[in-house]
């Protein structure tokens, strides 16, 4: 039995840990979506976190915990700076602005060759991420987000998502809450990037481009944003699907796009939708927050 587990782990440990980092990414975009914003910058924030922490551990010899903190703080800071002008935008315009920002980040990484290794990427990142780091990160992020949901901040996010004007007139600082969701999402994406970089030995700029952004969005939309299980479930499916259908591997992006289209058409609220679960007997929602 132990042998079997050992065997399983040596073959699949990377996949299991990728599940964890993908769950973090899905949760990071869940935050902005739960506040009604379609911000597509999470792949870029992941990249900023990955590069910041990798450069710190490789070149500056920082200890891993400090590098993790920096890998979260840096994207949050960048989010704060670009959020000031862009979060005024809504809908498609916000998506366009954040996509353009992502492209700028990718090109900057390629240009800053002396620091980032340019298009060739960073090689030889110390493999510091342990399996329990990823598990702890997912548990902690789920805990924080669950607490937020059950508080006035979570209700403010939901109010803003439903009607920004009405939310403002209920005394909610709309811009402040949007900024909180954006920066916190960036920090979580940075955490995922940091853990991922110290797991895979190598990072390159193309990992944090448009494809990754769409993949993150696909995971969360597929799972649904009505609860925290949705994004986790979505990340599970999107990560495992190419492994299960290994012949699809070359068409991964195609599969992601197809999933996104099908979900938007047939399950606009995602797979994990409390509405149909509430219809099951004995599960009627009681009290305030789900």
């Amino acid at each position, binding site marked *: 039995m132990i042998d079997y587990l050992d065997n399983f782990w040596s073959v699949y440990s990377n996949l299991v840990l990728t599940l964890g980092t993908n769950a973090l990414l899905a949760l990071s975009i869940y935050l902005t979506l739960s506040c009604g914003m379609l911000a597509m910058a999470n792949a870029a924030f992941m990249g900023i976190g990955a590069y910041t922490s990798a450069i710190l551990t490789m070149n500056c010899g920082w200890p891993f915990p400090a590098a993790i903190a920096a890998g979260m703080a840096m994207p949050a800071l960048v989010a704060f700076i670009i959020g000031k002008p862009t979060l005024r935008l809504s809908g498609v315009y916000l998506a366009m602005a954040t996509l353009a920002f992502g492209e700028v980040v990718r090109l900057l990484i390629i240009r800053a060759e002396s620091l980032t290794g340019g298009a060739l990427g960073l090689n030889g990142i110390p493999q510091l991420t342990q399996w329990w780091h990823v598990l702890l990160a997912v548990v902690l992020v789920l805990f924080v987000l669950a607490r937020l949901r059950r508080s006035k901040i979570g209700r403010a996010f*939901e109010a803003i998502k*439903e009607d920004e004007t009405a939310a*403002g*007139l*209920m*005394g909610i600082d709309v811009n402040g809450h949007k900024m909180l969701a954006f920066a916190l999402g960036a920090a979580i994406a940075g955490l995922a990037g940091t853990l991922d970089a110290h797991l895979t030995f190598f990072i390159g700029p193309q990992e944090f481009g448009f494809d990754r952004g769409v993949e993150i969005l696909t995971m969360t939309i597929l799972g649904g944003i009505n609860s925290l299980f949705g994004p986790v479930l979505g990340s599970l499916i999107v990560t495992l699907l190419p492994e299960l259908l290994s012949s699809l591997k070359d068409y991964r992006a195609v599969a992601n796009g197809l999933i996104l289209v099908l979900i938007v058409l047939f399950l606009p609220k995602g797979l994990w939708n409390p509405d149909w679960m509430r219809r099951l007997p004995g599960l009627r929602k009681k009290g*305030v927050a789900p």
Partner: protein
Amino acid sequence: MSELLELTNVSRHFGGLKVLQDVSFTVRPGTISGLIGPNGAGKTTVFNLITGLLAPTTGDITLAGASLLGRKPHAITRSGIARTFQNIRIFKEMTLLENVIVGMHRHLDYGVPGLMFALPKYRAAEKRARDRARELLSWMKLDHMADDLADNLSYGAQRRLEIARALATEPRLLLLDEPVAGMNSTEKTALMREIVNIQCRGYTIFMIEHDMRFVMGLCEEISVLNFGKIIAHGGPEQIRNDPQVIEAYLGREDDEVSVTPGAGE
């Protein structure tokens, strides 16, 4: 300072269009007063200026002597003004209780540690909020459906929910934008009673309304707006007999002007 709300020579232009010109009026604390006028007279614009959704082109708006100019909507709400909307804007995917608790946002002052670890302070505040929300819902006769989704409410009940939600912000001044639009006469009579009850609890109410019987029955003071200008001001009797008002607005067979939801501005 005896006046709660005071508008002084407020104008608002949209390009060359002068929607409001030199509008001045006051609302005394503890009263129910109203603003009436034909469709398109600029009534909702007045509300949007008071609540900070629009900025006046010229003039000043003060709440208990403090100017509201340049403040964001949420800051104005926090200083004590709450409103409802002509085209209802409840949070449809939340329960009634959640809708009302959203209005208490500012009054839930547990810190981040309290919230993260569900400390006693957080739990006490959340419980107080739920109790208060149920009380406010009971004022509007909605407490029996507190856990239903707001989307399932009838039109009249949605309007009443908006009032409960506005009261949750603990306002000094409650602005009602056509509270009985789309209601039948039974609902109107019931709402009338509930609004008087709200006033008795110490709130000041200022409303825009088309329904003359409703306004005349409730308001102590009425201002009349026509083509962006205040043409009359006074008690119900005075307004009823004002020749200018009769010409602009009341000169019809029936004393109820037909209401089209979504009209106005």
